[in-house]
């Protein structure tokens, strides 16, 4: 894990959990220019009760580099004072955190749009892959990419 040279972009790829409240406080404490904080948390979801965990595989080095590239584009497009992204890897149980995006700005629309843009591109361009592990001990399928995720990018063209 490391921070970028861009002062207002932080990307952390880590196996351990995070606390969204602590992360928000760290960005906003002792600052009086931030008027809007939009937070997105992505959690491990079990749709039919059979999932024991998702295993998140990633491409070390590229995962961080790609998210930084997406974050830099978001910061060029909207006046964001801070953009924090944390993405976990390894085995993650249903209900646990997978990803956190915190976008800070003077005004809400930039924060909403910046967080949304970042997640849309992260889903389709950040090198992570999810594999299911089932409660019966078997290894399930690799999760398939969704066309809807590709479609979501079009609104940013």
């Amino acid at each position, binding site marked *: 894990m490391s921070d970028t040279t861009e002062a207002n972009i932080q990307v952390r790829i880590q196996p351990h959990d995070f606390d969204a409240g602590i992360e928000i406080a760290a960005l906003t404490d002792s600052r009086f220019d931030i008027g809007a904080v939009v937070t997105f948390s*992505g959690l491990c979801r079990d749709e039919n009760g059979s999932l024991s965990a998702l295993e*998140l*595989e*990633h*491409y070390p*080095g*590229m*995962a961080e*580099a*790609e998210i930084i590239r997406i974050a830099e584009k978001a910061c060029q497009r909207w006046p964001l004072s801070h953009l924090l992204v944390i*993405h976990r890897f390894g085995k993650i149980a249903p209900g646990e955190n*997978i*990803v956190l995006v915190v976008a800070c700005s003077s005004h809400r629309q930039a924060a909403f749009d910046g967080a949304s843009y970042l*997640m849309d591109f*992260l*889903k*389709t*361009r*950040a*090198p*992570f*892959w*999810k*594999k299911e592990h089932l409660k019966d001990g078997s290894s399930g399928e*690799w*999760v*398939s*990419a969704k066309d809807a995720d590709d479609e979501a990018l079009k609104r940013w063209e």
Partner: protein
Amino acid sequence: MKVLYFSWIRERLGMDEEELTLPSEIKTVGEFLAWQKNRGEEFEAVLEFPDVVRVAVDHEHRDHDETIGDAREIALFPPMTGG
């Protein structure tokens, strides 16, 4: 150069990385994939539909018609499912 494999591509090939020296006539990502496809049954299966295979050169996404250049690292992987 180092070649990395991820997700079901890694599983089907039974390896996560290898060192390869590419023939000098291979210039583009697409040519590299076509060459890989001839390296045995597993490669042929993985690259049956090459359009679904994504490629990164030195940690950056590359389309199949783009050139490889003097890459240090190439990665093959399926569409991404993070977030």
